[in-house]
């Protein structure tokens, strides 16, 4: 009494509705996760601090970081993108945010680690304001789900001051 096409249509519609509901529920449950992570960062060494040919300050440094991101993971988490941003202000700019290092954590088991690395991206200013500048290091994370809403967060870590003069001749 129901044709094959009608049955297929009904089955497909119900399947689609169920899938959408599960995806929405998974994402909704993520909101109840209250993460408590720990992290620590330290500037080991300023490798290079100079003025580039086009006139902007550039800093490269080595960082020592340890962090525990396991509490960010839920069963709906595909990966956590974590990055460390140097944040500071200048006379012309009310906010400067420059990512120094980033990493993708795909498994909860690998979410707690320590690294000592040179910065992945140099800290380049719009201008020459970095000498003696106090820079804040903020850890940011971006939780990317298997489906649904993406969640961002951040945690200010330590501050440090750049040297008063360039370390290499430009």
């Amino acid at each position, binding site marked *: 009494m129901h044709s094959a096409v009608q049955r297929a249509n009904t089955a497909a519609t119900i399947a689609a509705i169920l899938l959408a509901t599960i995806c929405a529920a998974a994402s909704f449950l993520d909101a109840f996760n209250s993460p408590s992570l720990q992290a620590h960062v330290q500037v080991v060494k300023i490798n290079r601090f100079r003025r580039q040919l086009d006139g902007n300050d550039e800093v490269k440094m080595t960082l020592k970081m340890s962090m525990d991101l396991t509490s960010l993971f839920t069963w709906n988490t595909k990966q956590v993108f974590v990055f460390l941003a140097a944040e500071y202000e200048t006379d012309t700019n*009310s*906010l*400067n*945010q420059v*990512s120094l290092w*980033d990493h*993708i954590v795909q498994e909860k088991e690998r979410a707690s680690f320590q690294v000592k690395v040179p910065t992945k991206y140099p800290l380049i200013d719009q201008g020459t304001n970095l000498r003696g500048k106090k820079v804040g290091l903020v850890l940011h994370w971006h939780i*990317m789900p298997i489906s649904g809403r993406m969640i*961002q967060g951040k945690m200010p870590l330590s501050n440090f001051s750049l040297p008063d003069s360039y370390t290499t001749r430009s």
Partner: protein
Amino acid sequence: MDRIKFLGDVKIRPTLIQLLNLGMIICSALMIWKGLMCITGCESPVVVVLTGSMEPGFKRGDILFLHMNKEPIRAGEIVVYNVDGRDIPIVHRVIKAHERRDTGEIDILTKGDNNQVDDITLYSGGQLWLNLHHIIGRAIGYLPYVGYLTIIMTEMPIVKYLLIGVLALLVITSEE
């Protein structure tokens, strides 16, 4: 398919009602789309990921839900932007943001998670930064695989014509 009417048998009124139904469906779909545009504040509230430059987070064929508001763009956000003079939107992450004190304008540099270098070569001409007017929206949500159909339809137009043909056939021959 025992319900195919012979062409000579077509009656005016049922046909008109069917056309009206079709029109209603199309209008509802359009209303939902435009409504979404208003709620999310973006020209295209849903985009399909076309490249692998954001893997392993986003793969080709995933769809992203976008949202745009007056909140300033900050580092770490995944934005969809259009380069001046080009039509294809790019989905990448903001790695640098400089906000001007006087105008509130923000200079942005983006990079795909899976790329080695930042996007500066993608920006048109001698442009060094993106600004707010380049940004279509921020990605706030994500569904895997759903967009693959759109990619197939764009890259193999025959599938699109086939699909429309089959749908049209079903509409004409259905009883409701």
